[in-house]
């Protein structure tokens, strides 16, 4: 194995390590929904190639409003799925779409794009 091959191998290994860390093991942004006077829990989520924040914490038994603001027209993010709540909604580009739900059981419920590539979590406590 010559020097170049050694270098390419080492660089490849490093790159694979970086990809795995970046996508699977790096820390995620966790945000708690804001509770209002009336007991409604609300969170604003920006949709642009993903969801930010992508982990939303809410309390169970109280209504939740998730405001999805989609700031792109890439087709990947045009659909939002929250299968545990039977929600499939199209998100118009450059607009805010509000999803209302009432979580009654604790647990982690995933929301994804139509092809399950972009992912976020609703953590019900």
């Amino acid at each position: 194995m010559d020097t170049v091959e050694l270098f390419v191998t080492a660089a490849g290994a490093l790159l694979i390590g970086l990809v795995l860390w970046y996508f699977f093991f790096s820390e995620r942004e966790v945000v708690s929904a804001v509770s209002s006077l009336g007991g409604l829990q609300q969170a604003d989520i920006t949709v642009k190639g993903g969801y930010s924040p992508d982990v939303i914490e809410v309390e169970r038994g109280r209504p939740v409003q998730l405001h999805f603001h989609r700031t792109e027209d890439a087709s990947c993010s045009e659909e939002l799925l929250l299968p545990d709540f039977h929600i499939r909604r199209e998100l118009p580009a450059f607009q805010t779409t509000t999803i209302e739900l009432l979580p009654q059981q604790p647990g982690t419920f995933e929301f994804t794009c139509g092809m399950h590539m972009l992912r976020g979590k609703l953590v019900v406590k």
Partner: protein
Amino acid sequence: MNQQDIATGIPTEPKPEQASDGPERKATATLEIEGMSCAACAAAVQRSLTKAPGVRKALVNYATEKATVEYAPDLATPATLKAAVEKAGYGVAERQPDTSAADRQAEIDRQKAAAYQSLKRRLWVAAGLTAVIMPLSMIMLWPALSARVNVQWLNYLLLLLTGPVLLYSGREFYTSAWNAFRHRAANMDTLIAVGTGAAFLYSLAATVVPHFFMQRGLMPEVYYDTTATIIALILVGKVLEMRAKTQTSAAIRSLMGLQAQTARVIRGDQEFDVPLEQVQLDDVVLVRPGEKVATDGLVLDGHSAVDEAMLTGESLPVEKQAGDNVFGATINKTGAFRFRVTKVGADTLLAQIVKLVEDAQGSRAPIQRLADQVSAIFVPTVVCIAILTFVLWFDLAPESSRFTLALVNFVAVLIIACPCALGLATPTAIMVSTGKGAEQGVLIRNAEALEKAHEVNTVLLDKTGTITRGEPSVTDYVPVQPAADGQQLLRRIAAVERLSEHPLAAAVVRFAEEQGLAALPATGFRAIEGKGATASVANDTVLIGNQRLLTDEGVALTETAASRAAELRQQAKTVLFVALNGQIAAMLGVADTLRDTSAAAIGQLQRMGLEVVMMTGDNAQTAAKVAEQVGIKRFFAEVLPHDKANKVKELQAEGRVVAMVGDGINDAPALAQADIGLAMGAGTDIAMQAAGITLMRSDLHGVVTAIDLSRQTIRTIRQNLFFAFVYNTLGIPVAAGLLYPVFGVLLSPMLAAGAMALSSVSVLTNSLRLRTFGKQNR
């Protein structure tokens, strides 16, 4: 986890429900409050609402400008709640949810149309430029020609032509990949962007600094054709995919489009055509022949046949007269009638069907789980495989071509791996089939129910209301006095029964009406509890009832009458005796009759390999008779209502997967206990809520349709998942060059792009085949 428990949206309309702690009813309403400017305003509205009579609890949210009120519907109404808000000095916004939903849908449709046009433009640019780039790149195939061309200048020309393909046609892939990358997410665009980006950047370097490569003994090869072709082919796939995707939701769109736009409302003596949103509860609406019924209501007067196929799948028009329910979006055929509006907007049957189908389309089928888990890790894994491919080719290939082979295979791996097919496999099939089901009057509550229905091997039918009509009908009319005019006698009988409230009496009246007999007046009507009734009709005393009544009133049975009565009883029929002026005059045999379609549908279920079992509260003799008539071999007789769920359990204990079909409130526990519950449409809301599938039509053929649809859908999903998995599990190793050491085969990145474009299109096309469901069955 019980999905039903968590899938509760915020109630936006008053929803009466039974309180769990007692008989008192409660309802909740959400009001949109106008005029609040601070949290104190919200507190004031809340105070006023809390003090209003009948209100149990009120919560006002200043941020959302909404009040959620829990109240007793017997003491308060939405109008009194509104008055309470106004008393505090604020207003309640009139909700127009349908208009905003329609606007929203129109905006989404507009954006989709624009996106489709833009996609097509980008495809044409890419295709046009690729058509020039390809022959220019292959110039070396003609040595005579290539000798006369300056390769360096040619590379610059190719760079110039590829630029627009990359920056205009393929721009979305790069921005989308970058946006996803920032969110630590990766999608199909990531693979395309990394693949084409690597090919392009290497070509760019080879064009701008060719000496760098030559000094290291490498040929400065360019891959502009690869880059441009990949982008063009993927765009072809996207255009096809977008077209197919709009077809998956075609059924629900056509359902939504069924709604009438206007209604002819009668106010005072005048008729007005008003937009549907302005139609209110208790309005009186006139429907003329050929018109659509605007919303749900109760017929006040008039007579007509209404085509309800769009809601129930029933192709024959349904007769409507005063007292019957009519539903929005159905089509009035022959006569004219007036109806009183009982439901508007989101409460109408059509809106509920649309909501149910949408909910089902948003749910997740258990079969999807594996695909979900795979797609979550798919793209980063493929990127790692691609890097590994590059390293291995670089290390193992001959030195002269190692970089070229490493790069080509790296790009091929990225390009052939398509997570779209995996992501589309299940949802598209579910979307098409739930929509298709709704078209045929089969409402599927969620994907899980659809999936479960295909595993069913035993169908348990509740006799009354499913196999039979669920209401008694006169099957035999036997005048006993030979000289009597049967028709005149029947008119007298009907005259008495018209005044009775007994269900058997209703059957007699219906029978007389079906014979076209005009009504006679009756006087001195008297119901004799548990036995029958008597009245005077046209100077005759008519007595109708059971045998005890006859005995008590001293009417003797003739021998012929007694033997005929015994015959009727043997056929499991209830016998009604009629005496005229103290003499036995006639007998009527009454029974719950079979639906016309039951036997055929049961036969079809049996041919599908399902065992059909019947359950009834009737005695064994009656049950056996009915079972024999419809070809059922196994039945449970004398089942008490609260025992129905136990019968389901019994079958399940035998290892059977049970579909329970029922219609009444007392069927709800059994419907819930069964592996899949099918509620018959004419049934109650409670039965519908307990069931995974609702049949809009009172016809057992719906069960055949539901199970058949489920089987075909699951078959389609399995094919889709098979294609998607096999394609990726075979495609990726081939692209990585696994076949090269043995067969010397490498996959061109351009072929990989073609395969990728086709993978999701083929999955979509396969799902769309479900649109022909029903056509092939009839």
